[in-house]
């Protein structure tokens, strides 16, 4: 059967968040297309990895375990995936738009002569009519991405080639357990049949990877709170909204000074500068020091009781109201309207 397959990136002995986000999306696409969701891990042996993967609704997990397959290297991983895709003929293949995914995916797409779209921010299923050839296509993957320096949003399709390959940015999609008891099959690949000696001509001499820390700079959506949030407990709402939207949480200096949130999350001149697609400023008045760190965000929504708060002057949307009422409504209406 032509299924959906997700390449699971390995990070510190576990699966990278971006891959879990893709599995979450992949499960939804599989339900829509009435096919199965598959995942592939190429690594040294990681015991119990299937326990992490199956709850995301994975039906088949391919494991290519070999000491030589970790850390990631282009050629051996490309060989495993190219051969596996040739055998399984997935209709859709998804990878993270990370240093690894963006290095690996084009190599596979070139070998399979199939279409690949980089850095998608949204994936949908839809139809297409080729007007010239008067040909109809059903259930194609719409690969939606910004292009031209963010000035346009393009919807890309691959009508005739399979798999339809796409890489997706970390943090733009939600990560959500599908069913904690979900059980799939494990298929172990005999790696000697997938990689050859020539795949190991490039050598890693040295490697320095920092542990993953809080880094809100990479988030595409940031929900940020100020002193107006009132308490540390009220910040929980912001984490909930950020989680629902697939974003991260930031704060103003006043909120950090008040101990509502740690300094690593501070946005502004003495914190980090962020440029997400969407910045939601909750209970933030908008002092210059804060605005300097976020005014280049593509879209800004402010939520503030004070209609004259300076933040409103740089906001695309200024919601005048109490954060304690507005945020639960945002969550409620998002859940109601999101696909």
């Amino acid at each position: 059967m032509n299924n959906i397959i997700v390449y699971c990136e390995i990070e510190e002995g576990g699966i990278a968040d971006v891959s879990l986000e893709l599995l979450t999306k992949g499960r939804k696409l599989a339900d829509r297309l009435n096919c199965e969701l598959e995942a592939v891990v190429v690594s040294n042996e990681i015991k119990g990895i299937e326990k992490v993967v199956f709850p995301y609704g994975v039906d088949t997990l391919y494991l290519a375990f070999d000491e030589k397959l970790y850390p990631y290297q282009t050629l051996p991983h490309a060989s495993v995936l190219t051969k596996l895709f040739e055998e399984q003929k997935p209709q859709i293949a998804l990878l993270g738009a990370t240093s690894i995914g963006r290095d690996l995916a084009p190599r596979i797409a070139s070998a399979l002569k199939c279409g690949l779209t980089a850095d998608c921010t949204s994936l949908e299923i839809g139809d297409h009519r080729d007007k010239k050839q008067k040909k109809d296509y059903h259930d194609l993957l719409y690969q939606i991405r910004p292009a031209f320096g963010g000035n346009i949003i393009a919807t890309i399709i691959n009508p005739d080639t399979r798999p339809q390959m796409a890489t997706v940015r970390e943090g733009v999609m939600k990560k959500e357990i599908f069913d904690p008891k979900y059980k799939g099959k494990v298929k172990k690949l005999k790696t000697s049949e997938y990689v050859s000696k020539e795949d190991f001509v490039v050598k890693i001499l040295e490697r320095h990877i920092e542990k993953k820390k809080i880094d809100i700079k990479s988030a595409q959506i940031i929900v940020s709170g100020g002193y107006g949030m009132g308490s540390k407990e009220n910040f929980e709402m912001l984490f909930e909204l950020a989680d629902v939207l697939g974003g991260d949480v930031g704060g103003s200096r006043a909120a950090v000074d008040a101990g509502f949130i740690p300094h690593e999350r501070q946005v502004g001149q003495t914190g980090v500068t962020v440029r997400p697609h969407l910045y939601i400023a909750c209970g933030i008045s908008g002092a210059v020091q804060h605005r300097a760190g976020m005014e280049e965000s593509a879209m800004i929504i402010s939520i503030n009781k004070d209609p004259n708060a300076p933040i409103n002057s740089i906001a695309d949307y200024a919601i005048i109201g109490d954060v304690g009422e507005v945020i639960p409504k945002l969550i409620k209406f998002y859940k109601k309207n999101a696909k």
Partner: protein
Amino acid sequence: MKGFKIIVLAKQVPDTRNVGKDAMKANGTVNRAALPAVFNPEDLKALEQALRIKDQYPGTTITLLTMGPGRAAEIIREGLYRGADGGILITDRKFAGSDTLATSYAISLAIKKMAPYDMILAGRQAIDGDTAQVGPQAAEKLGIPQVTYCEEIVSINHKKVTVKRRLERGVETMEAPLPVLITVHGSAPECRSRNAKLLMKYKHAQTITEMQEATDDYIELHDSRPYLDIPEWTVADLNADEKWLGLSGSPTKVKKVTNVVFKAKESKVLTDSDEDIERLIIELLENHTIG
């Protein structure tokens, strides 16, 4: 040690980094035609890496390879002014509409025609598409290894090259055999500026098409100074199978393009009513701000 033969892949791109007011249409969308055409920034950094090898190993030759319309010869001249030894322009109407797969096919054929070579350097990605795909796809078609996101070429000899590469959260030092394709990351050093002597030397470097269209006649000058010729290669020169070029060779199709509209920051003021909040959420979902 004798020099190396290096090919640098370069692309002329619209400068999407600074979209000024004059590049905006009345409806708030970007006027792509009004943006200046520039040497793709990371490709310039790739050229710098090649020039550093040439500084260290005399006899090294650097040839720029670009694909695009006739005017893309501008970036070849730009590269010559900075120290490249020559350049080739792949140009043909039959390439129009090529996606990254079709582009990498054409480029790989040109590289095969230029063989032997020790190294291919390219920018990680171009600022118009940001795909970072053509480099790895060309490497696959040539059957050579790739090292992406290079920040520095640490050392090179005629068997292998050592490269420091920049990852999201760290660095890796790789050792790869030659020939290899290396893509250069934005964190690599800037390219040196034009050299006045080279600017004089290559000022009249032109393609045949440019010479034919020019009002001044430089044919005689080109006859006596063959280094001023910028070769143009077409589909026929590459022996390319047209099936794999242009629209027919491109598996990806653009179904729809939506312009992102830049609004003056005139805030829409909303109340905290259910209607206002729900309308906002629906709008954000529709324009893919949230998904």
